[in-house]
């Protein structure tokens, strides 16, 4: 923590002003300039930070003490403009600055791109709030040969201009010290000019561009990953390493250690032994029976799902911080365009492979309502989450490569088909693909671990309670004969159309409580030989296409409203069963048994 004494020196008597509430300060700036890092430095709170524009999709608040003042700091999503046509994120930020929600604005800027920063400064100045300008990543700017005359710029604007390298904490003490000196900025409107020419001219006056000294390797890598001849082999390599870490280390080695080792050998036998002292059979079954809270709920949540999710988030965090994912967007732009999206959709789609619920939340980075809706629909329909992926690989990998290809072929075809139709049927526009490519960086281990830890905690906080609620529901359903009733009701569909054993109906019910949880149920059926190879392929295909888990459904409702949530749920269910039935019929006609 930078010491607050510096402020005491700057302002002889710390002004202890009486306020009805703490001084409210907003951190505003272009995307990917490090607002969240500065927020963390000021408040001591960590918010997810990455090398990807648009990571912050909600407003985060935290408290900081500066000198004698208590301040409320607000971290906002990155904005490119505050006037004209605005995205949802930009509206959030504008309303905050406009609606009297804050008393002071700290504009965070990427020192490399002064023109762009000043364009925003000029628009911010129109709101009339006291401002401070932070030129962040000044080290990277200098490495690129860019130097900014901060003192001259400060005199011109009439506000403090601070040079910083927030990730290392440099400039933070100066920022704290400057809070009391914030002023209203002199920008375009005060000089009677338009924002853009003013920003252009001012940037030229206070910035000098010299020699480019970016690291050779960094430069080479940045180029190699975006050019097809080198980029595609790199992509295949990245996918293979991801498979090794998540599919082999996570889904096989760690799951094996946890499930057979920790739970199979120790915890579950101990739990059963302890439970045998309980005189009531009902309570015993509730804890350690077939649908027992410990033997089923906790075992699945911790032993099967946790290792996969953790390893996935580790790999994803690495790719995200390295700056690789925006470059991936260049390759995927064409495919996504056919589906009414653009390359930017690659982030939510890849994140969906970890957790669809979390990915649904990040669809906010997409620019138009139509794109967000299509992305949410496709996530719910076709993108398997990490636990499902592990199950699919675990079951079908043991059958044949052809079985795997069949499943992914069917699911991908459905996604592209639905996306293609949705792009034409749904009203609204697709947005242009304009993407900033941040420099390739070596991810910082500390940041990577913190981020993975935070995501895993988020996942556990959301998932484990749902796993347990799901288990309790199943237990109750089983006791009152509800499972049998549902299985009966679904029997004509499940056994007739899909050709699956009746027990699969029960697994699909579980699947809705938690998609990965249902997948784990199928895993158990396959392992105990309750499914033929053909049935396994059908069941997993339907499961992958099937309704999202409850958490995902609730997130869709939260993002897009109940009506759209129910519409997506209904559509996906019909499509999943329909596809399963068609696949079943086709495979049987052609006598494919895998």
């Amino acid at each position, binding site marked *: 923590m930078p010491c607050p004494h510096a402020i005491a020196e700057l302002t002889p008597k710390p002004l202890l002003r009486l306020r009805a509430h703490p001084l409210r300060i907003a951190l505003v700036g272009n995307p990917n300039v490090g607002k969240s890092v500065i927020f963390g430095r000021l408040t001591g709170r960590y918010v997810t930070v990455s090398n990807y524009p648009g990571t912050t999709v909600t407003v985060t608040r935290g408290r900081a003490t500066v000198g004698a003042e208590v301040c409320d700091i607000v971290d906002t999503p990155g904005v*490119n*403009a505050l006037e*004209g*046509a605005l995205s949802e994120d930009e509206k959030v930020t504008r309303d905050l600055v406009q609606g009297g929600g804050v008393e002071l604005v700290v504009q965070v800027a990427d020192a*490399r*791109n002064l*023109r*762009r920063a000043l*364009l*925003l400064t000029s628009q911010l100045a129109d709101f009339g709030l006291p401002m401070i300008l932070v030129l962040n990543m000044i080290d990277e*700017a200098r490495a*690129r040969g*860019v130097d900014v005359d901060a003192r001259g710029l400060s005199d011109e604007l009439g506000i403090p201009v601070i040079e910083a390298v927030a990730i290392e904490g440099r400039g933070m003490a100066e920022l704290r010290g400057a809070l009391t000196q914030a002023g209203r900025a002199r920008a375009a409107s005060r000089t009677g000019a338009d924002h*853009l020419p003013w920003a*252009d001219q001012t940037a030229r006056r206070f910035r000098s*561009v010299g020699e480019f000294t970016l690291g050779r390797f960094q430069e080479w890598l*940045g*180029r190699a990953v*975006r*050019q*097809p001849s080198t980029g595609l082999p790199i992509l295949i390599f990245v996918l293979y390493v991801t498979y090794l870490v998540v599919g082999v280390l996570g889904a096989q080695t760690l799951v094996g250690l946890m499930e057979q080792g920790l739970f199979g050998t120790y915890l579950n036998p101990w739990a059963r032994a302890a439970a045998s002292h309980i005189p009531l059979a009902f309570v015993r079954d509730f804890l350690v029976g077939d649908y027992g809270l410990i033997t089923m709920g906790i075992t699945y949540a911790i032993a099967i799902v946790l290792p996969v999710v953790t390893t996935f988030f580790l790999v994803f965090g690495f790719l995200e911080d390295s700056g690789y994912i*925006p*470059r991936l*967007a*260049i*390759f995927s*732009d*064409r495919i996504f*365009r056919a589906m009414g999206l*653009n*390359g930017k959709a690659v982030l939510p789609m890849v994140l969906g492979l970890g957790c669809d619920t979390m990915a649904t939340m990040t669809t906010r980075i997409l620019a138009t309502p139509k794109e967000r809706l299509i992305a949410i629909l496709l996530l719910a329909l076709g993108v398997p989450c990490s636990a499902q992926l592990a199950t699919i690989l675990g079951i079908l990998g043991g059958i044949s490569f052809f079985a795997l290809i069949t499943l992914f072929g069917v699911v991908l075809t459905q996604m592209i088909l639905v996306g293609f139709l949705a792009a034409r049927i749904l009203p609204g*526009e697709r947005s*242009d*693909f*304009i*993407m*900033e*490519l941040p*420099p390739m960086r070596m991810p910082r281990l500390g940041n990577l671990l913190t981020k993975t830890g935070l995501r895993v905690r988020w996942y556990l906080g959301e998932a484990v309670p749902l796993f347990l609620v799901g288990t309790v529901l199943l237990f109750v359903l089983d006791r009152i004969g509800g499972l049998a009733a549902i299985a009966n009701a679904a029997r004509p569909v499940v056994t007739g159309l899909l050709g699956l054993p009746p027990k699969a109906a029960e697994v699909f019910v579980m699947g809705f409580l938690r998609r990965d949880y249902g997948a784990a149920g199928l895993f158990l059926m396959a392992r105990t030989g309750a499914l033929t190879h053909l049935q396994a392929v059908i069941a997993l295909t339907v499961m992958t296409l099937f309704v999202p888990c409850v958490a995902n459904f609730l997130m869709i409702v939260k993002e897009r409203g109940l009506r759209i949530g129910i519409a997506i749920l209904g559509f996906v269910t019909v499509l999943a069963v329909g596809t399963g039935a068609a696949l079943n019929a086709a495979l049987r006609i052609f006598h494919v048994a895998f």
Partner: protein
Amino acid sequence: MSPSDRTRVDVHPLSALRRGSRGRIVRVTRDLTSRAERLAAMGVSPGAVVNVLQTFPGIVFECDQTELAVERLVARSIWVELEGV
């Protein structure tokens, strides 16, 4: 491009430039969408110096110390005056 333009300067849409081309933006076509405003907010506006880094699968160029990737449709509305080599 008309011959009169050619005698004066060498102006092309960004989408038609080859890799390695350098030049200064002279105009960003305005249409009914907010494309020009979006681009301006990223620093792509008349006066900015661009350097084409890649043309396939997407168009990648450097503008104001920032690397940007755009689709062809967008690149068509960015008009660049080539620097004499």
